[in-house]
C-alpha cells in the first residue's frame, strides 16, 4: 500500500472515531425519559422475573411492584445511583438492561464500535488501493490517462445522454 493511501485510511479512521465517539455519550439518557425520573430509572432496568422485559413497560406483578418501589424510593429522597445499587444488591447485575462498562463486559461496549472502525479502515484501504491501481494502469496504457478525468467523464456523459435521447425518439 502506498503512503498517501495509508494517510487517507488514517484520516477516514479518525473521522469514524470522532463520529462513533459522540453518540455513545449522547445516548445515555433518551430525551423522553428526562421528564419522569422514575421512568428514567426503570427504562434502564430489566424485570427480575422470567418475563425479561424492560421494567418501565413491564405489566407483570413483579414489574408493577418494583416500579412502585422505585417511585417510593424517589419520594424518600434517594437518587438514581442509590436505588440502582440497592436493586443490584438484591437481584444482581442481571437487573441492569445494559451491563456496566467494566471488566470483561467492556468487550460488548467496545467491540461493535471497534468492528465498525476496522470495517471502515479496511474498506478505505481497499478503495484507495483500487483507485490508485486503476489510475496507474490507465497511465501505463497506450495514450496514458486523460489530462482531466472530470472533463473527459462529462464529455462521455453528454454523449451517452445524446444517444439515450436518440433512442427514445
Amino acid at each position, binding site marked *: 500500500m502506498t503512503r498517501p493511501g495509508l494517510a*487517507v485510511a488514517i484520516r477516514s479512521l479518525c473521522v469514524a472515531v470522532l*463520529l*462513533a465517539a*459522540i*453518540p*455513545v455519550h*449522547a*445516548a*445515555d439518557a*433518551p*430525551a*423522553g425519559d428526562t421528564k*419522569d425520573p422514575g*421512568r428514567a430509572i426503570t*427504562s*434502564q432496568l*430489566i424485570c427480575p422475573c*422470567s*418475563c*425479561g*422485559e*424492560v421494567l418501565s*413497560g413491564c*405489566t407483570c406483578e413483579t414489574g*408493577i411492584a418494583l416500579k412502585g418501589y422505585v417511585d417510593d424510593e424517589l419520594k424518600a429522597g434517594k437518587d438514581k445511583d442509590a436505588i440502582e445499587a440497592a436493586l443490584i444488591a438484591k437481584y*444482581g*447485575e*442481571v*437487573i*441492569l*438492561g*445494559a*451491563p456496566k462498562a467494566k*471488566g*470483561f*463486559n467492556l468487550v*460488548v*461496549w467496545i*467491540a*461493535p*464500535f471497534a*468492528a*465498525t472502525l476496522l*470495517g*471502515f479502515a479496511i*474498506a*478505505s484501504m*481497499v*478503495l*484507495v488501493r*483500487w*483507485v490508485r*491501481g*486503476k489510475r496507474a494502469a490507465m497511465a501505463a496504457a497506450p495514450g496514458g490517462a486523460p489530462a482531466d*478525468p*472530470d472533463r473527459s*467523464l*462529462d464529455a462521455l456523459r453528454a454523449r451517452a445522454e445524446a444517444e439515450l*435521447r436518440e433512442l*427514445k425518439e
Partner: protein
Amino acid sequence: MSELGRLAILVAFLCAVYSTGVIAWGLRSGLAGPLRSGRNALWAVCSLTVLATIILSRALVARDFTYRYVAEHTSLDLPAMYAFASLWAGQEGSLLLWLLILCAYGAAFLWFYRNRLDPFYDAVVMVVSSVAVFFTFLLAFVCSPFRMLASPPADGMGLNPLLQDPGMMIHPPILYTGYVGFIIPFAFGIAVLLMNRTGTRWIEEVRRWTLFCWMFLGFGVLLGARWAYIELGWGGYWGWDPVENASLMPWLVGTAFLHSVMIEQRRGMLKTWNVALIVLTFELSIFGTFLTRSGVLTSVHSFAESNIGPWFMAFIIGSSTLATALILYRKALLESENKMDAIVSREGSFLFNNVLFVALTFATFLGTTFPVLSEAVTGAKISVSAPFFNRVNVPIGLALLILTGMGPVLSWKRATASVLQRNFLIPTVLGVVVTLLSLPLGVKGLYPIVTVFGSAFVMATIVMEFARGLQARKDVAAGRGAMAIVDLMAKNRRRYGGYVIHAGVVMIFVGVLGSSVFQKEAHQPLRTGDSMAIGDYRLTLRGTEQKMEKNAALTSAVLDVSKDGKSLGQSHPSKAMYFKSQQPMTEVALHQTPGEDLYMILGGVNEDGTVSIQAYINPLVSLIWAGGVVMLFGTLIALSDKMRLRREEKVAV
C-alpha cells in the same frame, strides 16, 4: 394416519438423501439420467412433506389427542383457527413448517427452471436437497410430530395464550417464508463455487430470489412488531428481544447484499464479498431458528424449547465451514473484473453502507449472545437488552439513514464536483431547514436531531430523483401528474422501486422517533367515576365487566375516552385469564389515528377496589406500519422488473 405421516417423513428423508447423492454423481459423471432422477426425487420430497403436513393439520383441527403434539398444543376449547395455527406453535410442527416452505421453494425452483438443462441448476437442486436432508432427519429421528400417546388424555394442554392472536395466523408463516427463502440464494452461491461458474446471469437471478424472501422477512419482522405492540401490552413494538434480533440479523445482511450485488452486476466487483454475504444471510436465518428453539437465551418467543440446539449448531458450523472452504478454494474465480475509479462514487457509498450493515449485524449478534458468553467467562449473570442496543445500534442506524440519501444520487464510477453540488446542495439545505423548524416542536438531543435531518435529507433526494426522471422524460412521455410518475416508474422499476423502499424506511425512522421521543405515559388507580388525564385525552372509569369466552375469563375496564372535551366513545382494556394455562394476558385497547395512538392497558383490579389503568400516547406510530406497507409496495415494484441483463451488460463498460 400417524404411521402414514411418520412413513412420509422417513421416505422424504431417503428421497432427499438420494436426490443429493444422485445429483452429485450426475455432476461428476456428466450423465443426464442421474440429474433428472435427482430432480424427480426432490419433487417426491415435496409431495411427501405436503402429505405429512396435511395429516398433522387434520389431527390438530380434529383435536386427535392420540398425537402427543396435538395433546401438548391444543385443547377442546381452542377456536378452530388457532388449532390449525398450532402447527407452528411447537417444536415439531415448526420444523415441519420449515420443511414445507423449503419444499415450496424447491418446487418453485424446479418449476421455473424445468427447461434449463444446464447442470449448474442441478447443483442448486443438490444444495436444496442436502438442506432438506437435515430437516427430514430431525423430523424423522429427533423430534417427530407423529409420536403417539399410549393413553391419550380427554383434553389437551392448550395453546400458549400469547399465541392466541389473529396475527399468529400469518406472522410466523410469513417470517418463515423469508427465513427459509434464503436457501435459494445460498444454493446458487454454493453452486457457483462448486461448478466454477463465472458470469453475471446467476447474480441477477439470485438478486430476484433474495429480494423476494427479503420482502417476506422484512414484512414478517414488522408483523412481529405489530403483534408485540398489540399482544404484549408494554406500550412499545420493539424490545430487542433475542428472537426479534435473530429475525433482524439476516434481514440486515440480506439488505447489504441487495446493495452490493448491484456493484457486481454493473462492475464485476465484490464477488467474494457477495458470496460471503449470501452464506452469512442463510447461516443467520438458521441461527434464528436455533435461538428460538434451543432455549439458550430467555425470550418472550421461547414457545418451544427442546434439545435440538446442538443439531442446529452442528449444521451451522458444518455448512459455514464447507462454504468458507469453497470460497477459499475458488478464490481465483471470485477475482474482481474491475477496480474502483474513485472513492466518491456510488460503489464507494455502497461499500461503506455494507460496512455499516455488517457492523449493525455484528453489534446485534454480540449483544444477543453476550449474556451467555459473559456468564461462561465470569460466572455472573447479566442482561443485554434495549438500553444497550439503543446506545450501540442507534448511531450506526442513523449513519445508515444518511447513506440512504447519499448512495442513490452519486454517480457510478466517479462523482464529479459538479454532480455533488447539484445533488446534495438542495437536500442538505432542506435537511437543515426542517431540522431548525423541528426544534421549537420539542426535538432535542443528538439522535432526534440527526433523525430529523437525515429523514428530510433522504426524502429530498428521493423527490429530486423523481423530479429529474420526470424532467428527462418530459419530451418523450405525454402523461402528466400521477400518470407520468407511474410511467416513469414502469420504465425503471428496480431504480424507482428502490426509492419507494427508501421512502418507507424514512417513514419508519420518523415513526420510531415520534413514538419514542414524544411518548407520553400515565398510570393511575381509578375508582368508578374517577378520571385521569394524559395529554389532551381524559379517561373516565365507568366500571368493570366480566365476560366468559370459550377458553378464557375476561375482565375489562369500561373507559369513557374524550379528547379536548369531545367524546371518542368507550374503550375496554382487558385482562384474560386462560383456563388451561392459568396465565393472565393483557388485551390492549387502542384508539388509533394517523397522528397518534392512545394505548390503554388494564393493570388489574386492586384489593382496595380500585382499577389500575396505564395509558400511553404514542405519536406517529402509524407511520411505522405505513412505512412497512410502502416498503412492501416498493419491493413489489422492484420485483416486477423484467430481466434486463443483456441491456445492462451492454451499458456496463
